[in-house]
């Protein structure tokens, strides 16, 4: 320490820290805008499969999410281990999908109502039977644009 003190014998002028709060606020605002708030907590296992021919999903307000998979560990006692559909914050039946899509569609602004995409976030261990049933329901309510949400990665990793 003595080495630093050698240069100036007098009092060291204090560094102005008036701008530090500004920096903190800048950081705060940056993360506030970047953070995506989760709007529903997952009640199913959701290990998405891999794919590499993927397209980015549209803006968030144009997407309706449907989750499916085995119930998470803490719900397995009450709901069993067979794959289930989750809509918003509840487990649902296949027959509820159509009503859910119509309700979600009605909530959106009018100009968005016919550009909506349905994102299927399905666990990779799920059987196709459930997904086929969901797709049939979606066809009934004319929600034809779908997106199989995946992680980006080599598709061959799915086969292991």
């Amino acid at each position, binding site marked *: 320490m003595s080495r630093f003190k050698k240069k100036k014998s007098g009092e060291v002028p204090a560094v102005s820290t008036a701008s*530090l709060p500004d920096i903190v606020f800048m950081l705060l605002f940056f993360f506030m805008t970047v953070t995506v708030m989760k709007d529903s907590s997952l009640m199913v296992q959701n290990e998405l499969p891999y*794919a590499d021919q993927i397209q980015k999903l549209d803006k968030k307000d144009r997407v309706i999410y449907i989750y499916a998979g085995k119930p998470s560990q803490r719900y397995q006692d009450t709901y069993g281990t067979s794959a289930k559909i989750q809509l918003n914050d509840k487990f649902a039946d296949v027959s509820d999908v159509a009503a859910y899509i119509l309700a979600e569609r009605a909530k959106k602004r009018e100009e968005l109502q016919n550009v909506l995409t349905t994102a299927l976030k399905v666990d990779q261990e799920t059987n196709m039977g459930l997904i086929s049933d969901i797709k049939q329901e979606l066809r009934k309510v004319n929600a034809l644009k779908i997106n199989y949400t995946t992680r980006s990665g080599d598709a061959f990793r799915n086969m292991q």
Partner: protein
Amino acid sequence: MARRGGAPEVNAGSMADIAFLLLIFFLVTTTIETDSGLDRKLPPDEPPQDNVIIKQKNIFTVEVNKNNQLLVEEELLELKDLRAAAVKFLDNGGGEGEKGERCDYCQGDRDPASSDHPNKAIISLRNDRQTKYSTYIAVQNELVAAYNELRNRESERLYGRPFTTMEAEYLDPKTSDAVKDELKPKIERIQEMYPQKLSEAEPKTN
């Protein structure tokens, strides 16, 4: 600011620590989610038109059974060979297209026993109810990859850039309208050359 005589300056050295604390907190909690996946379009729920006769040679059947095995054109196939097989089928161009034209951009074998024209070629995917979702996605991914491979090839030839990047730019909400208008005819032209005709049959129930 006027400095008063002997007023002690507040030591703000720890402010930086606070800033870092906040920074690290947000860094840990933030998940910057970019959702992406395979876009698909379902067929409308209408009674099927009858009297549509499609020649067997224009259909490329892919079946996935409950043990996640692939049966392509009645033969067992590994997933890694699916893309090449699909490309070969789509790019065959052995006959005449919908309007009686020949495929002058196809680079396939022109095998008369395979598809006539890319705009006639249909890939039919059928899966079992017991098929695992991850397998299904892998198969979908390979089939989309086959289309993308051909589209990229033609796009490179005509416009000097891959189709997938053009499409990504077109779909990006940040792209300006002027650029979009310029890209649209190009994308439509490529899509017309290799239309994605991927039909999904109802799964087998057994």
